[in-house]
């Protein structure tokens, strides 16, 4: 246990390498495209547009929080969509592949494998950071207000970082042995997305009326992380300290378990990838 924590802290040693690999990832991703880095901005915007048209204008949200305005709903949607889609979901999917794609590094040179999931999560985190100013610019445009509670955003981001990293360690190491996980994960993420209050608010009447649904949603750690973003940006209220605190502890446990499994399977990577 202590060794595991020490190893995790040791990741700091590799910061220069991580930094370089992340910048390589970012550079390589849009190399050869005409718009290049702007895709980091366009991707979340396009996504937002589609969801706003479908759920805001066609389905029409009924919750009082949106004051019957599709634009307010768009802002709410953006709060959850950005961290989920740009950061969590793409990190998880990439983690499932990363050890296999970088098999050469693992097999042929002495390389600290554990930094690969870190690089995946960090580079997607940076994409998320690029999208964050857009979200903030859109707050007044879509009818919201800036509040001092925005200052709590880094706390929420930190909790999500720990959770995403733990999940990435778990997924990346298991996929090496069971390639099926890649396909399972794609479906799981869709299901998970709808099981998290992103396109609907927790205050939605259907959710509030059914205690089963409410309890199930509360068991999902991502629920509290997403609600954290919504509190800071959309509702302009204090984040739910207790719930986020518990989520943070769960995230830490996931990180330790994920890393423990990763560490346990590490020696088999060179043969299996």
């Amino acid at each position, binding site marked *: 246990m202590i060794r595991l924590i020490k190893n995790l802290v040791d990741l700091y040693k590799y910061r220069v390498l991580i930094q*370089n690999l992340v910048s390589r990832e970012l*550079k*390589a991703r849009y190399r050869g495209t005409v718009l290049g880095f702007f895709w980091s901005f366009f991707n979340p915007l396009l996504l937002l547009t589609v969801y706003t048209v479908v759920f805001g204008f066609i389905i029409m949200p009924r919750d009082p929080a949106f004051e019957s305005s599709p634009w307010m709903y768009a802002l709410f949607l953006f709060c959850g969509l950005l961290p989920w889609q740009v950061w969590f979901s793409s990190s998880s999917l990439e983690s499932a592949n990363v050890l296999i794609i970088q098999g050469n590094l693992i097999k042929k*040179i*002495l390389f600290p494998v554990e930094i690969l999931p870190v690089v995946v999560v960090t580079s997607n985190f940076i994409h998320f950071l690029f999208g964050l100013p857009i979200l903030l610019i859109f707050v007044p445009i879509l009818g919201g207000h800036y509040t001092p509670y925005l200052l709590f955003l880094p706390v929420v981001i930190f909790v999500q970082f720990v959770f995403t990293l733990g999940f990435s360690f778990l997924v990346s190491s298991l996929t090496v*042995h069971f390639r099926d996980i890649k396909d399972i994960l794609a479906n799981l993420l869709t299901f998970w997305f709808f099981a998290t209050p992103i396109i609907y608010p927790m205050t939605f009447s259907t959710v509030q009326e059914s205690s089963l649904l409410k309890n199930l949603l509360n068991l999902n750690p991502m629920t509290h992380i997403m609600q954290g973003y919504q509190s800071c940006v959309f509702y302009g209220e204090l984040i739910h300290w207790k719930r986020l605190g518990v989520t943070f502890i769960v995230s830490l446990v996931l990180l330790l378990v994920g890393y423990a499994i990763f560490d346990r399977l590490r020696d088999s990577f060179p043969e299996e990838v």
Partner: protein
Amino acid sequence: MVAINVDQVTRIYQKYSAQHRFKTFKSAIVKGDFFKSLRPDELVAALDNVSFKVEKGTTFGVIGENGSGKSTLLKVITGIAKPTSGSVRVDGKISALIELGAGFHPEISGRENVFINGIMLGLSKKEITEKFENIVRFAELEEFIDAPVKTYSSGMHMRLGFSIAINVNPDILLIDEVLAVGDASFVPKCLDRIDDFRRRKKTILFVSHDLSTVEKICDRVIWLKHGKIQTMGEPKRVVDAYIQDVAEKQEEDFERRQQEVEAEEKFEEERRENRWGKREIEIKKVRLKGLDGTEKHVYSPDEGMVIEMDVLAYSQIKDFAFGIGIYNPKGICCYGTNTQLEEFKAQSVEGEGQVVCQIEKLGLINGTYYLDVAIHKKDGYPYDYHRNLYSFLISSTKKDVGILRPKHSWKFSSGIKIQAPSTEEK
């Protein structure tokens, strides 16, 4: 001072079958006994109780057939793979020329890749900036360094990888058969660098199939066979033992091929393209032997060969000559003769008989050779002609070129300083 100490290292590889994998997945989900069920169903020992020490400042060679565990050994020493049992201790900074440019990202430029690869190999950013010029110049890639690596040829890729790895300035250099891809001008440059390393008293572990280079540059050699150390010691002795072993294996191959030829012959006797003639006199069997009379197919250039033919004449024939021809793989006739050319006077032959042609010394260079044997009339009309049906191998560490090796020696006047090869070939 010991630079690398390999102590009773065993490395076992695990094989998982597809069926096993499915079962594992199922039981992992159903029973939750995940780690227990990750047990493999077949074990392969790539290294089996291997121990040796490499002294600081020496060059240590590793030879052996494909699959004998050489690469696994290097992986265990670099730490990429962990030994299943035993221990490896390494004193000093290692740079491994195993897979050159393994970490290159195809989409980004050579320049950026040099930095990232250098950091992976343990250099700091500052060190790389200092060495950058050198790295690029050595790799001869000045013009292309800003192009994405995916546009590089495999040679450019390898040159850049080699150049980075060698500029890491390690205490111990591991080299695994990497020089095979370089072109004619780059390989000598690499060898120069390796020589430079030896002069600076750095430790080198050299894995290669190029036996003459191993013999030349190594101070000690081990020969791995099926994951075990077969012989260890002075290069000449180990290389010779290895060559002998390979020759024995080749001998078996040739024997099998010969048997195949004979078996095939029974089936399509008439249709064989490589055999013609009406067979008034037939060549029943051909045997290749050493001068001592044992059948063999692998010879050293200085050895002699005996060609034995069993012949059968179905009636009494008066006009006949026996001939042989030796061809190299390019189809060039290295030597050909027959009894008529050598002015034997044919009188008569009937029934079974044996013809023996003894070559005192083959005097050919390395390679596979094909043998023609024939019986024909004086005017060339063939009774039985066997075209390239038999083959043998000349095996030697010397790399001379041409067709034949005349017996020769070198002499130098006293003003010329030149060192004779350390040991004479048998």
